[in-house]
């Protein structure tokens, strides 16, 4: 008798279901966000180094390579925000008596609303 059969695990398990792929993409946003934050630190460093250094750095950043990198970073950051707000109603359900606040509404109240406010506020501050 050979007993129970144990199925082997695939190394690339994350390709087995579309949901796993989506999960992995979500998790990988953290690599890009982390990369961007390091670049942000460099930016802050140059800002501390005086106007000339900062201007030189900004001029470098306006090159196509950096632009493309920032496009990727933006996509990753936005995807992180979207997936995070989708999770908020699950992780922090809000009850109004017997009823749970519907997930889309909860995502707007606890996610998209504050997000758009913060983003608009920061952009407005810089652009005004």
């Amino acid at each position: 008798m050979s007993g129970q059969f144990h199925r082997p695990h695939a190394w690339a398990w994350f390709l087995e279901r579309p949901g796993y792929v989506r999960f992995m993409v979500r998790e990988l946003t953290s690599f890009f966000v982390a990369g961007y934050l390091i670049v942000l630190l460099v930016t802050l460093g140059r800002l501390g180094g005086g106007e000339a250094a900062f201007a030189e750095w900004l001029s470098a950043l306006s090159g196509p390579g950096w632009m493309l990198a920032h496009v990727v970073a933006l996509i990753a950051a936005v995807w992180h925000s979207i997936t995070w707000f989708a999770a908020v109603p699950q992780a922090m359900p809000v009850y109004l008596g017997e009823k749970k606040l519907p997930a889309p509404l909860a995502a707007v109240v606890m996610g998209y609303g504050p997000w758009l406010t913060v983003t608009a506020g920061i952009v407005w501050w810089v652009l005004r």
Partner: protein
Amino acid sequence: MSTELTMTLEVFRYHPETDHEPRFQAYEVPYDEDWVVLDALNWIKDHVDGSLTHRWSCRMGVCGSCGMMVNGDPKLTCAVFLKDYYPRPIKVEPLVNFPVERDLVVSLDGFMDKLEAVKPYIIRDDVNDTSGGEYLQSPAELAQYKQYSMCINCMLCYAACPVAGHEDEFLGPAALALGHRYNKDSRDQGQAERLDVMLVGEAIWGCTFVGECTVVCPKHVDPAGAIQQAKAVGAQEFFKRFVAPKGAGV
């Protein structure tokens, strides 16, 4: 009548007394648009091959016996219809992430241990006495845990969870959701005891919120949500230790 139409079921076969490796066996079954996949399996067992082995009972999606992989997805076979796949063949396998006992039957030993570990029952300090009547619980308090009490232990969530497949210490979606269900029950006082089990090692922390457990759950339990909430409670308790003096059961 549609009696002449047929379709193919490719069924995972494994017998512990004779096989070292599983194989697939194809069966031609009558196609009936009212049939669920389970009906086709029962037809095979009754009429073609009595050695085909699977579990089932209620055929109405509540006993939790007949969970299997149907074309790669964990499903209650009493709740998926042949017509959803016809005319393509249907591949039926035992739930993944469990040891296979025979054919479509998997071992639940691991799950039963994990379920027991989370102490899924009311824990209270007072003496059990029915003479005072029922404990009051408002509809709002009921709503706090009701969803998590709907688990039928069908194990589809374990089959959908990559962590359950890779990490033995992980208690898994159903057991954690049931632990959380009792923590959220206003009649219960056992949260600290349960957290002593849930917050150890990878028991709950193994979860990385893949979320597929919630996607496949046939009873809309949302174990993924329950687990994140339980983690948040765990985090609160962690920080409370620094605020409240030791042993203060705040």
